[in-house]
């Protein structure tokens, strides 16, 4: 069952990532878009593109029937869900199967066994994978939550059963915070995953987030591609990820990898998946959850192993065997990923939708830009704020860090505020160089990080005044003729001024 035409049930950079992989495999691509996304990059890059509904995801990217309908009408024989949206929804996987479409991801059964965190915790317990104490099943009501929290002791963490990317997660320090935390966690979980179920576990203090990438084919072959460390987070949203983890040595990698593969085998898992662990100060690792899909941060593993994860997903979905074993997986150098979001970290992290009037992405040696935007694109307000992922590779962590600093300094986005200035300061921080990482890293270093100092104030004043001065001079010029005006529109702007 080879794949000839694939529908990408997603948007943004991951839709572009999947389209690129398909193009390289000679697979035709079908994009879908909401009313807000007609001009999105994935629509332009796909071979075909069809409207699927209104801007809110609930009316478009989350409407299973509509996606199946478009897949059928366009003659697609496969569907890639990307991450988020319906990627971990077993009903979507089943709907694809019923429609005779190859779903590029795990079978619904494995999703149920692992995709739901509570089910995964049950399985992990059976497989003897160590875990943080907490509830195994979804919380029935507020009383149950309060009762369990008392048993295992505060602080506790609320988590969405269907969750991922920190959506629907809340830290609860004391009982008085429980009610509001439950309300907002359920609300967020419902909005993000269409399922309000949440569960509870003890919060490990200043843990490190280390996850294992797993690949499993339909013939029972399972390998792990080593770990990623994703400890630098804000409100459980990963900001910076790297491979390998500075904490993990080959022995620890082997132990964590074996635990992950054991879990995948037990769940009859097929395709790419990630097993997340918390690691405490003594380098003990605790099973956290399984992400039964491609991860946002998959590129750092790709750069270090040389294995194209989306290509592997497509091969596995087409029924091909992996064709290699654990011993064939090797790691070279170090890779770091920074998430470039349309948020202003120096103004309360407010989302910053709007038009990107200028864009110069970083490039050059070992710099990879996985982007979903382009110059002239208007960032809609309906979806998450991620514009692009900036990934670098280096011969070692120090080289990769230096390269990331260089790349962030190059990356220019005009028109919307982004997280780039903050990312640049984090990567330049001594605690980052020293790999003093934990999920509390950001809170710890933020006080050292300032919106700006005065060193370029004079230059900024000069630039601002010159812009105003030329603005005035232009205004004083005679108007261009109709032709001039429309030619400019048509041929591209005269970036004149001193030309």
């Amino acid at each position: 069952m080879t794949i000839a035409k694939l529908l990408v049930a997603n948007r943004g950079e991951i839709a572009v990532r999947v389209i690129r992989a398909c193009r390289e495999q000679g697979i035709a691509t079908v994009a879908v878009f909401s009313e807000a996304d007609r001009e999105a990059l994935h629509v332009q890059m796909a071979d075909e593109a069809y409207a699927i509904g209104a801007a809110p995801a609930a009316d478009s990217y989350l409407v299973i029937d509509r996606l199946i309908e478009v897949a059928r009408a366009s003659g697609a024989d496969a569907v890639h869900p990307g991450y988020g949206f319906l990627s971990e929804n077993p009903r979507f996987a089943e709907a694809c199967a019923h429609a005779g479409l190859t779903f590029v991801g795990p079978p619904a059964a494995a999703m149920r066994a692992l995709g739901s965190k509570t089910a995964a915790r049950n399985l992990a317990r059976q497989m003897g994978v160590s875990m943080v104490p907490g509830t195994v099943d979804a919380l029935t009501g507020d009383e149950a939550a309060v009762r369990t929290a008392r048993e295992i002791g505060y602080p506790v963490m609320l988590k969405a059963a269907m969750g991922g990317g920190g959506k629907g997660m809340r830290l609860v320090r004391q009982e008085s915070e429980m009610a509001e935390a439950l309300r907002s966690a359920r609300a967020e979980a419902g909005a993000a995953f269409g399922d309000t179920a949440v569960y509870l576990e003890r919060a490990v203090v200043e843990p490190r987030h280390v996850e294992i990438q797993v690949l499993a084919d339909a013939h029972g072959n399972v390998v792990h591609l080593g770990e990623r460390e994703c400890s630098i987070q804000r409100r459980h949203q990963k900001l910076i990820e790297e491979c390998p983890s500075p904490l993990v040595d080959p022995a620890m990698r082997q132990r964590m990898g074996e635990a992950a593969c054991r879990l995948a085998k037990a769940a009859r898992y097929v395709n790419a998946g990630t097993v997340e662990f918390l690691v405490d100060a003594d380098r003990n690792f605790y099973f956290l959850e399984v992400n039964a899909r491609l991860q946002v941060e998959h590129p750092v593993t790709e750069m270090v192993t040389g294995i194209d994860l989306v290509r592997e997903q497509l091969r596995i979905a087409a029924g091909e065997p992996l064709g290699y074993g654990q011993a064939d997986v090797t790691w070279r150098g170090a890779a770091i990923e920074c998430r470039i979001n349309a948020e202003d970290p120096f103004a309360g992290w407010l989302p910053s939708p709007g038009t990107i009037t200028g864009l110069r992405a970083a490039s050059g040696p070992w710099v990879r830009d996985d982007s979903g935007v382009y110059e002239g694109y208007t960032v809609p307000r309906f979806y998450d704020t991620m514009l692009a992922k900036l990934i670098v590779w280096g011969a070692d962590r120090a080289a990769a860090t230096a390269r990331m600093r260089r790349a962030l300094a190059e990356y220019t986005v005009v028109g919307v505020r982004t997280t780039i200035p903050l990312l640049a300061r984090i990567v330049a921080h001594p605690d980052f160089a020293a790999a003093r990482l934990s999920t509390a890293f950001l809170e710890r270093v933020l006080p050292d990080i300032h919106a700006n100092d005065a060193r370029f104030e004079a230059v900024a004043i000069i630039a601002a005044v010159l812009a105003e001065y030329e603005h005035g001079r232009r205004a004083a010029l005679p108007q261009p003729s109709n032709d001039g005006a429309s030619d400019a529109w048509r041929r591209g702007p005269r970036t004149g001024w001193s030309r």
Partner: protein
Amino acid sequence: MKYVATVGGQEHVVDVAARADGRYRLVVGDREWDVDARLTAQGIYSLLIDGISHVADVVDADGACLVDVGGETYAITVEEQTRHIIRTRGGAAPGGSGQTLRAPLPGKISRVAVRSGDAVKAGDTLLVIEAMKMENELRAGAAGTVLDVRVQAGQAVNAGDVLIVMG
């Protein structure tokens, strides 16, 4: 041509003159600058000042402009000096007053935490606006009384809409 540039509350008088060779002579305060400036792309400027190369992005952001240079960001208001003098003699402050809470971005009101008549202290949550799948809490900057609530939960708002009037 004289301007007043205001950054971080500080006012700087700047005198600009274009030179024949496409360069500029600027006097900022009592310091003179010789600047070779080019607009190399929309909003992206290349500046050579005493041999040092700077790339500065300048974008308008309601009234002020935001300048990104060397990884730093500066919000700068630039006015012709004459206009500045007239305006400041008039005494009216630029921009919106602190008495009204305006929507900082387009979105949907997911929760209103106060009603008119409520007394609030600094840091109290006034309402929650949902945009780009995130809940953004808007809190009171200072103690005061809520005079009027202009929106309700579920309502869509545009950036700049008045949400709450404080007294």
